[in-house]
């Protein structure tokens, strides 16, 4: 029996299917939009058309919208799922997962394929995907394009940690005629600063793995790696880590 993992994040909703042997046989992603229930329903449709009706398989849901997945047999937090997903992708550990999510950033220490410790950012959005999204918006860019642009910039720093104040800071930098690449550099550095501070606070040790929607941006991996003085690796499947972890969990339930 195949195992299904659903991850309803604040920005995007993901589904993956692992077959009996643990091979990833299906994945899909769609924007969460304003309703996690609708996103969950959309994923169900995609799964069904691929021949994996959730009704016939073990299914675990995770992520901030996990309560809105009526067809999931069990709910597990994204912290546990990200750790299991990372262990699926990168091995048993020990290593540290940096998950920059839409709503929060998690630093998870993994050992023996399980969570050994974790921290999350507070209510504040500094250092999260949301922070980047708002800054990118104020510069008329997509987050990925902004990170790419930042690689050519230098010299600017954003001092406000508060998203609201940082946005006015960016707008005033635009007003001063600063180069767009330099402003982008300042924004990315601000996120990297905050994420690294969290890593240090967590006492996380390398190697580090980046998961979440931004995991394939070299413009984020490079500065993180430089500042952490350690390799920061990822996988093209990094954004599915939560869903993969959910499917891994579903698989263990299926086997009793």
């Amino acid at each position, binding site marked *: 029996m195949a195992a299904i993992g659903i991850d309803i994040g604040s920005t995007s909703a993901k589904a993956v299917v692992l077959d009996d042997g643990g091979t990833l046989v299906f994945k899909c992603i769609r924007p969460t939009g304003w309703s996690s229930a609708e996103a969950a329903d959309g994923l169900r449709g995609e799964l069904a058309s691929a021949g994996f009706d959730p009704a016939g398989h073990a299914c675990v849901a995770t992520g901030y919208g996990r309560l809105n997945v009526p067809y999931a047999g069990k709910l597990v937090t994204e912290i*546990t799922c990200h750790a299991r997903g990372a262990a699926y992708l990168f091995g048993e550990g020990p290593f540290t997962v940096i998950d920059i999510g839409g709503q*929060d950033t998690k630093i998870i220490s993994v050992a023996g394929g399980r969570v050994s410790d*974790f921290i999350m950012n507070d209510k504040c959005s500094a250092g999260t995907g949301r922070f980047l999204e708002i800054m990118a918006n104020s510069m008329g860019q997509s987050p990925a394009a902004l990170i790419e642009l930042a690689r050519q910039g230098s010299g600017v720093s954003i001092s406000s940690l508060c998203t609201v104040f940082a946005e006015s800071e960016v707008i005033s930098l635009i007003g001063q005629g600063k180069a767009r690449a330099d402003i982008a550099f300042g924004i990315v550095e601000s996120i990297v600063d905050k994420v690294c501070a969290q890593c240090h606070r967590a006492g996380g040790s390398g190697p580090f793995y980046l998961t979440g929607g931004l995991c394939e941006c070299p413009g984020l991996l490079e500065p993180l790696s430089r500042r952490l003085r350690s390799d920061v690796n990822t996988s093209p499947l990094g954004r599915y880590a939560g869903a993969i972890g959910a499917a891994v969990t579903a698989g263990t339930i299926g086997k009793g």
Partner: protein
Amino acid sequence: MADYRKMWEELGMDLESHDTLCAVLPVAFGDTYLSQENRPENMAFYDFVVSEIHGVRPSELIEHQKKGGKVLGTFCVYVPDEVAVAAGAVVTGLCGGSQFWVPGGEKVLPKNTCSLIKASVGARLDRTCPFFRIADMYIGETTCDGKKKAWEILAEDVPVHVMDLPQMKRPQDYTKWADEIRIFIGVVEKLTGGKVTAESLGAAIRLINNKRRALARVYECRKSEVIPISGKDGLLMTQIAFFDDPARCAEMANKLADELEKRIKDGVSVFPKGTKRILLTGTPLAIPNWKLHHLIETSGAAVVCEEMCTGTRYFEHLVDESQTTLDGQVDALAARYMKNNCACFTPNTGRIDDILRLAREYKADGVINTNLKFCGLYDTESRSVMRALKDAGIPALNIETDYTDTDAEQLRTRIQAFLELLG
């Protein structure tokens, strides 16, 4: 329904604002407490007290004042109730535990002040809590910078006496605290016109010790494998102990303990077998702050102990009852109160020892260390707490929060992830 409006009006309260609080309390209490199954019958008393929280006890305090008695308001477990009782005064706790009062405090305090101080100042200045109106004098202490400056603001509106708590535990600090207690005796005698004698102080020491023994009996039951009472209910008993008459408090806690001891014998637990046991450590949870307990216990774990001012710090250690002279009694008081381990002391390794001991005694599967946002002392100390727990192999989660509702879902995710980690 009983109408306390006249009493509140006479206390000079802002009835309209206060009514907002009256409207939300039943909802919060129902969701948190009445949603529980199979609660001990003796929790009925505490449900009654909450239902009449701004009515019954305030009326009793006013009756005491009508007979010429005085009421002292306190904010800290270092302030010795015994002295006030010996001089014929009644003590009531005044710590604010609701977000409702926070904006009132923010009118005069910096944003980066903890919610407890903001709420306490707000409750007084906005005139929205009868206890804050009734107290003839507030007794402050120097347990943090925020409080020290808050007393100055409150003193513009109400008489305040501040006790200078030492911040180290050298022999001279014990002497100094004994001196502070002697000064406090003078202040209370002057206020009440009563006299603190070896006889009256001895009786007060026994009274408050009996209250401590009764509270300790309930906590003793929480150590059992069979968990006869939820953490929420244990916390509620402790929170109300700060407001109640000490003799009645002991009587009710003893009744509750009788029932819990019987439940243990009969194997009656309020949680399924194998429920993870959590020791909660950190900053106090003043009534009606029930957020963390509720999130933990509706995520499938049980809070079995609070290493907090609203917990073990309130009742652990008794005052030596064998002293017969006033001087001997004051030294005994100083010795007992200085055994408390607050983060305002340096160093404060005794608190680490307490936490490790409590984790063992209460058979905790994990520790959640909580810090009220902007409490610099406990926040800084959380580093050594977390490290000691790690070294002892006890899983621990650190949570910083305040009185608002907005982080509830996020906290729930963290707590659930921590419980998943416990297996």
